C-alpha cells in the first residue's frame, strides 16, 4: 500500500448515506501534512510513520512493529487491541512511547474504514520544549502551519527577558540596600537612626560649635516581655507609640534617635541644665508607663534613662559621651529600672528622683569600677 483514502467518516458526523470517497493521499503527502503521524494497518502493525515521529526513535524501525507494543495508551485507557482504538474514531488520544524517554504525545485517531486501519496524527504538546533539544529537531521537522516554532521562539524570548528582569531586580535591590544604608531614618518608627546620630554628634563635637547639650540614653524596660507574650507585631506597635511619646516630650530642635532594638537616644539641644533634663526624663518615664493598647490588650513598659552633659567634657568626644550615658543608663537599670541617672563630672553617677531630689549612686563594680 502506498497511500490511504480518506473516507470522510471521521467523528461519525457525516450523517446518513454512503460518504463520497475522499482523495487518495500518497505517503509523501501524509508526511508533509502530518510529520508526526502513524498509520496503523488493520492487523495492528505500523504501516508508516511521519518523518518527525521517526526522529523521536532514532535507530529504531517503527514500521512493521505492533502499534500497541510501541505505545502505551494513556487516554482512552481502555485500548487493548486495535478494535478498541477504531471504536474511538475521531476522538482525542494521549499516549507515550513504552521505551526510552517518556515524551507524552497527544493527537486524534481517525479510522480509515475498508480494513485500512487508522491514522493517528500526533503532537508533542507541551513536551515539545524538552523534545526539540533531546532529538535535535529543527524548523523543518514541523509543518509550516504549525505554530510550534513560534511557541519555542516565544518561550526563549520570555526566558531571556525574565533573566534580564531578574538582573534588574537584583540591581534595584542592591540600590535599595545602599540607599537604606545612607538613610538617616529608622524605617519602623520614622525617628532618626544611629547613623544620623553619629553625624549630629560629630557636628556638635566641632570645637567651633561650643553648644551645650544633654545626651540621654533610654532603654525600654519590660519590652522583651511584650514581644514574648504578645508577639512582634505588638512590639513594633509599642516602639512606634514610644517614638510618638518621645517626639511629643521633646522640643523641635532636639533629636530623637532609635539607636537600635528598644534603645533610644535623645540629644537635647542648647540645654545642659540637670533639673530641666530630669523633668523631661521623668515625664517620659511617666508617659511610657501608661499602658499602650494593642488590639485591645494593654502593653506595659517603662524606661531606664542615663544622661550625660556636654559641660562634663573639656573637649567634646562623642564616643566618651555615649559611653558615659550608657553607664548612667545601666546604673538606672541596676537601681531597679524606671529611673533616671545623670553622670556629672564632679559627682559621678547620680540618680535623680522624680521630685528632682539628688542622691548619689553607690558604686557597684565592675561596671562602675572605671568611673571617673
Amino acid at each position, binding site marked *: 500500500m502506498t497511500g490511504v483514502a480518506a473516507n470522510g467518516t471521521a467523528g461519525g458526523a457525516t450523517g446518513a448515506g454512503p460518504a463520497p470517497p475522499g482523495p487518495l493521499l500518497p505517503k509523501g503527502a501524509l508526511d508533509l501534512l502530518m510529520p508526526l503521524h502513524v498509520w496503523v494497518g488493520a492487523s495492528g502493525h505500523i504501516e508508516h510513520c511521519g518523518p518527525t515521529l521517526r526522529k523521536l526513535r532514532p535507530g529504531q524501525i517503527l514500521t512493521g512493529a505492533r502499534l500497541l507494543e510501541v505505545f502505551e495508551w494513556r487516554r482512552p485507557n481502555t485500548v487493548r487491541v486495535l478494535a478498541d482504538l477504531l471504536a474511538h474514531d475521531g476522538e482525542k488520544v494521549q499516549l507515550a512511547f513504552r521505551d526510552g524517554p517518556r515524551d507524552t504525545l497527544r493527537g486524534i485517531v481517525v479510522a480509515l474504514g475498508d480494513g485500512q486501519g487508522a491514522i493517528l496524527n500526533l503532537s508533542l504538546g507541551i513536551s515539545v520544549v524538552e523534545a526539540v533539544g533531546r532529538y535535535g*529537531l*529543527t524548523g523543518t521537522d514541523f509543518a509550516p502551519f504549525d505554530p510550534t516554532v513560534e511557541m*519555542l521562539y516565544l518561550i526563549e524570548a520570555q526566558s531571556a527577558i525574565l533573566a534580564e528582569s531578574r538582573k534588574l531586580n537584583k540591581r534595584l535591590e542592591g540600590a535599595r540596600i545602599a540607599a537604606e544604608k545612607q538613610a538617616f531614618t529608622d524605617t519602623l518608627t520614622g525617628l532618626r537612626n544611629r547613623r544620623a546620630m553619629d553625624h549630629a554628634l560629630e557636628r556638635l563635637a566641632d570645637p567651633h560649635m561650643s553648644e551645650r547639650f544633654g545626651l540621654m540614653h533610654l532603654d525600654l524596660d519590660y519590652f522583651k516581655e511584650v514581644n514574648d507574650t504578645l508577639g512582634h507585631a505588638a512590639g513594633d506597635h509599642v516602639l512606634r507609640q514610644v517614638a510618638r511619646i518621645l517626639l511629643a516630650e521633646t522640643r523641635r530642635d532636639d533629636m530623637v534617635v532609635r539607636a537600635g532594638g528598644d534603645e533610644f537616644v535623645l540629644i537635647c539641644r542648647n540645654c545642659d541644665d540637670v533639673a530641666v533634663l530630669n523633668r523631661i526624663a521623668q515625664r517620659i518615664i511617666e508617659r511610657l508607663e501608661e499602658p499602650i493598647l494593642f488590639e485591645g490588650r494593654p502593653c506595659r513598659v517603662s524606661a531606664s534613662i542615663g544622661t550625660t552633659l556636654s559641660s562634663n567634657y573639656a573637649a567634646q568626644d562623642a564616643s566618651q559621651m555615649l559611653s558615659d550615658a550608657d553607664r548612667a543608663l545601666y546604673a538606672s537599670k541596676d537601681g531597679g529600672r524606671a529611673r533616671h541617672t545623670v553622670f556629672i563630672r564632679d559627682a559621678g553617677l547620680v540618680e535623680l528622683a522624680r521630685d528632682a531630689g539628688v542622691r548619689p549612686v553607690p558604686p557597684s563594680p565592675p561596671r562602675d569600677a572605671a568611673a571617673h
Partner: protein
Amino acid sequence: MHGLINRSIQCFVRDTYGADRWAEVCARAKLESQDFEALLTYDDALTDAVIRAASELLEKERVLFLEDLGHYLVTHPESDALRRLLRFGGETFVDFLHSLEELHDRGRLALPDLDLPRIEMREHGGSSFTLGLCWGDLGPVVLGVLRAMADEYGALVLMEYHASGAHARDEAITIELLETTHAEGRSFALGRVRR
C-alpha cells in the same frame, strides 16, 4: 527609545572599545548614569545623543558605527539570545529575509513595548531583494544584523544601505544573493544547549 536599544549601544561600546571609552561617551552625551536598563524606556533624544557622542569620539561615521553595532549584536557571545531568536525566522537565509517582515510583530510578542522597525521585503527574481524600512535613521543597524546573519547561514551576499528624505525617513537595503551555501553556516538547533 526602548532600553534594550540603549543597552545594546552601551554593551557594544564597552565590549568593543573598553569601559573607559564608554565612560567618555557618557560624559560627552551628558548622561546622568553610565548604565542603561534593558527593561526601561528612555527619551529618544538620549539615544540620539549617545550615538552622536560615540561616533564623534570613536571617529566613526554614524552609518558605520550603527552597522558595526548590528553586527556585534548577532556575533557577540553575550548576546547569543538575539542570534538564536533571529534564527527562529527560518531554515535558510531567504526564509530568514522573508521572516523580517514579521520582525516588528515578533518583537511585540516578546516585549509589548518594543518598537522594532516595520520591514517590507520585495523580491526581484529570486536572488535580489529590496528591504524597505522606517526606523528613524537607525536602519544601518539592520544592515549590520543582516551581514552577520548571512554569515550565520553561510550565504554570500552583497548589501547596500540607502537613505533618502529628511532624517533618512525612507531607508532601504538592497540585497544581492550570490550564493546561498557559500560557506558552512553556524549550527542552530531549536533546543537550547544547556550550559
